[in-house]
C-alpha cells in the first residue's frame, strides 16, 4: 500500500449500478426491466453482458484496482468509466459531472481536462516523435506550440526519457514506449488517471522496473487512479483497494488484506490463494493484548505487514509492543503469536 487514504477525502469517481450490455436496443429493454434485471434472462435474449450492476466509489488520491481474468469485464468497465463505451444503464460521476447525461461537447471537455488513459498496447502514433506524441493531447486542446512543447519536455524528463525527444516510437523498447504513453497521459495534468493493463505487454523484469517507476511517480503526483490488471501480485503491490471481477460482476471490493483474510466466495479464495500472506496481512492479525514483558523500545506499527516484522520477531525472545497511527501502544506481537498464525 502506497499511501493509506483517509476516508474523509472527497469522492473523485463514483459508479452507480453500471450495466454494459451489447446488442441492439438493449437500453430500452434494461429500462423496462428496472431493478429486476437479470443477466441470465439477457443472455437468453441474445444480448452479451459486459458489465453488470457495478457500484463503487473512488476517493481522491486513491489507487483503485480492477482485477480479473480475461473476459471478466474489467476493461469494459474501465471503458464505461471513461465514456469510451456508452452506459447501458446506471450512472458514472466524475467529481460532480455525470457521464450518462453528458453531451458529446461535455464529454470532450472532461477528456481534455479531467481524465486521461494509458493503453495496454501503448497506442503511440507512429508518425510522431516521442516529444510530439507526448504533446499530442495539448495540441488537440489548442495549447500554443511553444507552451505545449515545454510542458511535454517537462513530463518527458519526469518519466526518465531525456535525450529521446526526437526518437520515433518504433525506435524504442517496449518499456520506453510505455513511458511515452505514461508521459502523454500526464501532460494535461488530469485529476483521474486510468491505466488499462499498462504493464501487461512487457516482459517480467521490465514490468517490475515500470511498477517501481509508477510507485515513484505516484509518490510525487498523488493522482486518483483506476488501474486494470490481471496480475494479482501487481494489484497487491500498487493498489489501495482491489475490486475482483468475474463474468462482468464485481465479486468483492477491499484491501488486499480484506481479500486474503475474508474472501467473499470460493472464486476470490482461489484467486488470493497463492499470494505470500505475510506480504499482505498486517500485524493486526496476530495482535495480542499488551503484557508486562513486552519490549517497548522501537515498537512495530499496527498497519505494518507481517513480512516486514518477521526477522525481528523470530530473533527476539520477548514479545514486542505495537503502536497505532497515533502512537498509542495497542498491543504486542510475539514469536508464539506469529507461529500460531502460520500454522492456522
Amino acid at each position, binding site marked *: 500500500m502506497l499511501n493509506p487514504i483517509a476516508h474523509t477525502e472527497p469522492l473523485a469517481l463514483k459508479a452507480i449500478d453500471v450495466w454494459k450490455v451489447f446488442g441492439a436496443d438493449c437500453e430500452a429493454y434494461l429500462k423496462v426491466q428496472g431493478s429486476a434485471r437479470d443477466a441470465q434472462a439477457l443472455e437468453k435474449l441474445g444480448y452479451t453482458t459486459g458489465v453488470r450492476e457495478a457500484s463503487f466509489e473512488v476517493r481522491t488520491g486513491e489507487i483503485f484496482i480492477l482485477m480479473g481474468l480475461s473476459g471478466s469485464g474489467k476493461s469494459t468497465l474501465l471503458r464505461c468509466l471513461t*465514456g*469510451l463505451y456508452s452506459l447501458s444503464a446506471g450512472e458514472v460521476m466524475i467529481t460532480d459531472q455525470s457521464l450518462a447525461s453528458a453531451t458529446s461537447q461535455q464529454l*470532450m471537455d472532461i477528456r481534455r481536462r479531467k481524465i*486521461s*488513459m494509458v493503453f495496454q498496447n*501503448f497506442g503511440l*502514433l507512429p*508518425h510522431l516523435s516521442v516529444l510530439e506524441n507526448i504533446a499530442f*493531447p495539448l495540441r488537440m486542446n489548442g495549447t500554443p506550440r511553444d507552451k505545449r512543447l515545454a510542458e511535454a519536455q517537462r513530463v518527458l524528463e519526469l518519466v526518465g526519457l531525456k535525450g529521446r525527444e526526437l526518437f520515433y516510437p518504433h525506435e524504442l523498447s517496449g518499456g520506453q514506449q510505455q513511458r511515452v504513453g505514461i508521459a502523454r497521459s500526464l501532460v*494535461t495534468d488530469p485529476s483521474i488517471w486510468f491505466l488499462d493493463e499498462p504493464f501487461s505487454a512487457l516482459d517480467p523484469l521490465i514490468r517490475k522496473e515500470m511498477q517501481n517507476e509508477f510507485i515513484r511517480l505516484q509518490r510525487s503526483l498523488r493522482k486518483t487512479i483506476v488501474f486494470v490488471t490481471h496480475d494479482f501480485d501487481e494489484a497487491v503491490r500498487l493498489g489501495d483497494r482491489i475490486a475482483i471481477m468475474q463474468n462482468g460482476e464485481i465479486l468483492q471490493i477491499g484491501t488486499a488484506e480484506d481479500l486474503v483474510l475474508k474472501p467473499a466466495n470460493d472464486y476470490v479464495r482461489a484467486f488470493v490463494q497463492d499470494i505470500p500472506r505475510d506480504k499482505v496481512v498486517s500485524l493486526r492479525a496476530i495482535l495480542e493484548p499488551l503484557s508486562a514483558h513486552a519490549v517497548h523500545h522501537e515498537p512495530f506499527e499496527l498497519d505494518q505487514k507481517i513480512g516486514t516484522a518477521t526477522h525481528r520477531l523470530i530473533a527476539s525472545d520477548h514479545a514486542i509492543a505495537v503502536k497505532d497511527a497515533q502512537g498509542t501502544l495497542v498491543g504486542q506481537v510475539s514469536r508464539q503469536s506469529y507461529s500460531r498464525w502460520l500454522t492456522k
Partner: protein
Amino acid sequence: MNSQQIPTTLADPVNSRTRPAGGAGRFMMFKAVTLVVVTLIVLMLVNRVDWAHSMPQAWTVDAGSYITRLLAHITQFTIGSYTIVDISRWISGVLALPQRFLGGLLVEGFRFSLFGLAPVTLPAIPWFSMFFVLTLLSARFGGRKLALLVGGCLAYFLFTGLWVSAVNTLVTVAVAIPIGCSLGLLLGILAYRYPAAEAVLEPFYDTMQTLPIFSYLVLIVVFFGFGPIAGLVALVIYAMPPMARITTFALRHTPQSIVELAQITGCTPRQQCWNVQVPAARATLLTGLNQVIMLTFSTVIICAIIGGEGLGADVLRGLKSMRLGGALVAGVAITLMAIMLDRACRIWIMRRPGHEQSKKGLLTLVCVLVTVAGVVAVWLYPNVATFPKALEFEPGKFLNQQLRVFNLAFQPQLSALRDGVISGLLRPTRELFGSFGWLPGLIGFGGLALISGGRKLAVMVVLMLGAVAWFGLWDKAMVSLYLVIISTLTAIVLGLPLGILAGLNRKAFVILEVVADTLQTLPAFVYLIPVVVLFEVGDFAAYIAIVLYGLAPVSRYVATSLQQVGGDYKEVARMNGCNGTQQFFHVLLPLALPQIVLGISQTIMLSFGMLIVVALVGSQGLEAQTLSAIGRVQPGEGLISGLGIAALAITVDRIVRATTNKLTPSTKRASGEQA
C-alpha cells in the same frame, strides 16, 4: 482454414463434406442426370423456335441511341449562362494547368516576353540534368540497387530515342496520380465516416471496376473531348476507386488503442480523422498509392486511344501501322517506368522516420545546382538539349527486320498451327455458343445460378442477361463469351500442371514467381505484339493473347495456394502414414481447393479485362462494338455494350464463386441440408 492454428486432426477438412450413403447417393445421381438430360432436350427444342432463338427486332430496344441522345441533352443543359460542357471544359482547363507547367519544366520550356522585348524561351530541364538528379536521389534514398535500376531505365529511354515520350508519360502520370490519390482519399474518408455515402459509392465502384474502361472513355470524350487532358481524366477516374477502397479499409482497421486514444484525448471527429487515423494508416495508404501507380500505367496505352501523349501513343501507333518492333520497345519502356516508380515508392513506404538528422541541405543544393547548370548550358548551346542522335539506335527497326525473317522462315508451321486450332477448336466452339438462342440461354444460365447460388442469384442473372438480349446484343455477347470461356479453359488446362509442379517443388516455385511477376507487370497490350507478329489479326490472335495473359495468374494461384498449406498439415499427413500421392489428394488439394477456385475465378475476370484489349486485334464481340463506338463518338452504344460485357463478367464470376462456396466444407451447411 486458419493456418496459424496447429492442426491436431485431419478429420475436419476430409470428413465433414457430406457424402450421402451408397444407395441413396446412386438414386440422387440418377435423378440429377435425368434432370440434366431432360433440361437439355427441352432447351434444344426451345432453341428451334425462331423467336426464342433470336429475338425479333420489334421486341428489342436500341437503348444505345437513347442514351446518346440523353447525353446530348445533358451536355447542353444550362446552369446560369453555362452549359454542362462549358463547365467540364473549364475543369479540363484547370487540370491542364499543372500538366502544362510540368510539361514546360521538363519538355518544352517556357516562352515569355518581358517589357515588350522579343520573346525569350527559358529552356526545359535537359536530359543530362534529369538523369543526374534522379539517379543521385535514388542512390541517396534507395541505395546502389535503386540507383542502378533508375539509371538503367533512364538510359534505356535515352538510347532507344524514347526520351521525350517517356518524359511526357511521366508528366501525365505525375499529375494524374496525386489527383487520383487525393480524390480517392477524400472519398474513402467520406465512406468511412458516413455509412450512407458508402452505400451509394460501393456499387458504383463495383460497376466501374467491371465496366470495361473503353465504355467510359466514350463518356469522357463527350465531356472533355479528345486530347491529353481527356486521357488524364480517364487515368484519374480509373485510379480513384482502389485508392478510395483502401482508404476506407485502412481507416476501419486502425488499431483500437489508437482510436480510443483519439477519443480519450478529446479529439473532435475532424481531429480524430486528420491528426490521428489518417497519419496512423500511412503505411496502408502508401500501399494504395502503389496500386494506383500500377493501374495507371496499365491504362496509359488505353488513354492514348482518346489522345493521350507519350509512350502509350507510341505503342498504339506501332500496333496500328504494324511496326511491331517499335511498339514492343515502347511497351517495354512503359513496363520499365512502372517498375521504376513502383520500386521507388516501395522504398518510400518502407522508410520510417528516424531521429538522426540527415544532410538534406547539401543534397538539395547539389540537385538545384545541376538543374540550373543544365538549363543555362542549354540556353548557351541549344544543341545539347537533345540526346545525340548518333548514340541512339533503333531496336524497333532491327526487331522488325528480324521478325520478318522469322515469319518468312516459319510461315508454313505457324499457319498450320493457326488453321488447326481454328478449325479444330475455335470454330466449333464459336458455332456452339452462337447456336444458343436468347431464351434457352437465359433459362440455362438462370438454372445454373439457381443450383449454385439460390434464387437471388438466379433472378439477378436472368435480369442482367435479359437486358443484354432486350438491347439486341445477345449474338455479340455470345461471341465475347465464347472467346473468354475457351481461352480461360485453355489457360487453365495449360496452367494447372505448371502450377501443381511449382506448388510441390520449391525451386520451380521460385522460377515461376519470377516469370509470373515479370509477365504480370507487362501492360496487357504488350501481349498483343508478339501474337500479332506471329499470327496476324483475328480471332486466333485474340485467343492466344488471352491465353498468354491468363497463364501467369492461373499457375501462380495454384502454386501459391499449394505452397501456403501449412507445414503443420504436411507433418500431420506424414505422421498419419500418407504417402506422397495420398498427401497430395487427401491433404494438400482439399486444403488448397478454395483458393485455387478463387484464382480461377480471378483469371476469368482478368480475361474479361483482356477481352477489351484484344478488340484491337480484331475480335468481333461486344468489345469490338465498344471500341468502334469511341471513334464514332457514340457514347450510348459504347456504354451499353460495355455494360453487356460487365453483365457477362459478373454472371460468370458470381456463378463460379457460388459454386466454390458450395464446395467449401462446412459442418453447419451439411447439418442444415440434412435437417
